[in-house]
């Protein structure tokens, strides 16, 4: 019993080690960028950070090598996911800290967690003078985080592991596009890389038409696409997308972050010729309904207060922020404080709701997810019908997601449970904001943004905010991105070990 547990722990460390090795190797990309741009100090920062990740990851991978053929249980798979994200954040924050653009290591960790979870809130200081190497790292973290750290490791570093699917699920993805988890993760990367080429090209052209030089337009296009596709929200300049003053740029980013918020299974279906899936899928349907309703509410709220000179401007600004919040991207074409000073409660209510609802399951997006909203809506419909019909009538819930699905009670229970956990987390974040001295409205807005891994800000998130609130937001981003179960599994495991070994 004890030997089996030790073997399993060894396997957990082995796979966490592999993920960290992956994160160490990936840092050679911004390192190259720094060398090309002659940013020698940044190149050294990346060399130090990459080596640290390789040392820690290599030691863990070698240490647990004997156990690597051990069959992982669900708990271990989840622990690999949660542990990788935790240690990955600590190690990936090193270049941020060494660059001097962050006040503390906590701020650096905040930005890494924000990037990996595709949240997009930032603690960086003097973003407008940031090095190209560090900008590459910020956006690369978001791009990798969108697909998932474990997905990265499974795709390129792991071969034929029996526990791969459990690690994959631990990262809040559960669609099987291919016969096994490793092929599925490779397909996810293939889809993302195809879009990376296409998206960079489009945003490159958009950047040139906005007035950027060809080389700058290319870099901005690459970075902004990475953030858009991953529904991340980082941008290379402090004004975010407002910097470009371009409707073309806004439309292009909007298209990419909407596509990025779709389920990878939907991408697979469409790419393999099932185009009707786009109009039949429960997630696209629920997304269309919620976006339409919330856009109307936002525009109404903005028009009521005469925030914008005409309906077109109100729609352009309102729709962009709303869709950015709904897809959990966090790109902005207004200043953060404008939400607080100008937008009014009705529009903010719509944006907060959109941020909590989120994008699709098994995508780069956060929030409740369209699939769960679809299941809950169908279940509520069934229960309502049941009340109106005779007792002997059998009502079943059915929705379309790739195929027609009749969810069992466990799936329905799981959908309700995860949504309740999101709401509890949102409440905790709001309370933490209020305890730190912010108003209810500001706290709720920022908490929704953090819980949904969105990145829209009303002005709470900044380097001067209290450390306790930063820490709370880091934990919320982490648990929400992994959809609670992985972190809970890790917490239960650690608590069990502490009880057994430390307490009398």
């Amino acid at each position, binding site marked *: 019993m004890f030997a089996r547990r030790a073997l399993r722990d060894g396997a957990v460390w082995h796979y966490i080690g592999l993920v960290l090795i992956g994160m160490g190797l990936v840092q050679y990309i911004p390192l190259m960028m720094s060398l090309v741009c002659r940013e020698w100090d940044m190149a050294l920062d990346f060399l130090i950070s990459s*080596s640290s990740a390789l040392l820690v990851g290599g030691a863990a991978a070698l240490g647990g090598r004997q156990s690597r053929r051990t069959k992982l249980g669900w708990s271990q798979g989840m622990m690999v996911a949660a542990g990788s994200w935790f240690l990955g954040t600590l190690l990936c924050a090193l270049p941020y800290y060494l660059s001097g653009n962050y006040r503390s290591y906590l701020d650096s960790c905040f930005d890494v967690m924000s990037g990996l979870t595709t949240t997009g809130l930032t603690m960086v200081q003097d973003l407008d003078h940031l090095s190209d190497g560090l900008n590459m790292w910020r956006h690369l973290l978001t791009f990798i985080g969108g697909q998932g750290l474990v997905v990265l490791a499974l795709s390129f570093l792991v071969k034929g592991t029996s526990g791969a699917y459990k690690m994959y699920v631990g990262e809040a993805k559960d669609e099987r596009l291919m016969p096994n988890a490793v092929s599925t993760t490779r397909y996810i990367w293939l889809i993302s890389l195809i879009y990376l080429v296409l998206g960079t090209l489009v945003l490159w052209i958009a950047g040139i038409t906005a007035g950027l030089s060809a080389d700058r337009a290319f870099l901005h296009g690459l970075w902004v696409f990475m953030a858009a596709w991953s529904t991340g929200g980082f941008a290379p300049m402090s004004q975010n997308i407002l910097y470009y003053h371009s409707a073309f740029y806004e439309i292009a980013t909007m298209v990419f972050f909407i596509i990025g918020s779709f389920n990878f299974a939907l991408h697979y279906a469409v790419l393999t010729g099932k185009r009707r899936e786009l109009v039949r899928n429960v997630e696209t349907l629920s997304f269309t309904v919620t976006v339409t309703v919330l856009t109307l509410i936002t525009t109404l709220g903005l028009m009521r207060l005469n925030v914008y000179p005409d309906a077109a401007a109100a729609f352009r600004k309102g729709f962009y922020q709303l869709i950015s919040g709904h897809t959990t991207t966090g790109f902005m074409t207004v200043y953060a404080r*404008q939400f607080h000073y100008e937008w009014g409660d009705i529009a903010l209510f719509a944006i907060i709701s959109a941020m909590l609802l989120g994008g699709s399951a098994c995508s780069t997006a956060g929030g409740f997810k369209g699939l769960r909203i679809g299941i809950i809506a169908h279940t509520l419909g069934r229960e309502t019908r049941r009340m109106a019909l005779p007792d002997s009538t059998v009502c079943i819930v059915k929705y379309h997601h790739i195929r027609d699905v009749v969810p069992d009670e466990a799936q329905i229970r799981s959908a309700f449970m995860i949504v309740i956990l999101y709401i509890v987390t949102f409440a905790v974040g709001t309370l933490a904001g209020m305890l730190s001295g912010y108003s209810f409205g500001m706290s709720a807005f920022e908490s929704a943004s953090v819980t949904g891994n969105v990145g829209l800000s009303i002005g709470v998130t900044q380097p001067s905010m209290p450390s306790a609130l930063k820490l709370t937001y880091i934990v919320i981003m982490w648990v929400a991105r992994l959809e609670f179960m992985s972190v809970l599994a890790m917490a239960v495991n650690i608590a069990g070990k502490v009880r057994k070994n430390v307490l009398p």
Partner: protein
Amino acid sequence: MYCRKLVFMILLLLMASPSSVSGEEAGSVQLIQQAKDYDEREIVYSGEVIGDILRAGDHVWLNVSDGRSAMGVWVTAELAGAVEIPGRYSQRGDVIRVTGRFSRACPEHGGDMDLHAQSLVLLERGFPVGHAVPAWKAWLAAGTTVPALLLLIGVVRGFSQKRGLRPTRFTPPYPYGRLNPKA
């Protein structure tokens, strides 16, 4: 160089400080937080040009930061001719002072908060910024990279051995079937 940076920073802080300005002069924080008060009024705004000079026909977009936030300035290409160096990692940008009409939600530009400049004055030319490489970083990089790469080789060799892809000198010799056992 440090002295120059210090003067530059003090200049930016003075520009951002409300107490140092008179009448219609405003900083970015004031403009954002009291946008309705300043809406469609002529104001004076100063700061560093950052990022890029975005050309749009006979006009140009300049994004001007006063050290707290950046504001989009819509200016004719002719006036913007004075601006040459935008601020980036390797350089501090030109510091300018613009006078123009502030719009909380500009009807001409899709509701953007911006400033349409009528005059532009160059206050200070931008300059290159050097980033010194501390010796300790070079030593630390060397000290961690070598063992990290050795460990990585160890991990890769460990996997290869296990999969039998690459026999190493530690592989026990195959005892049977060799053509010449004495060799």
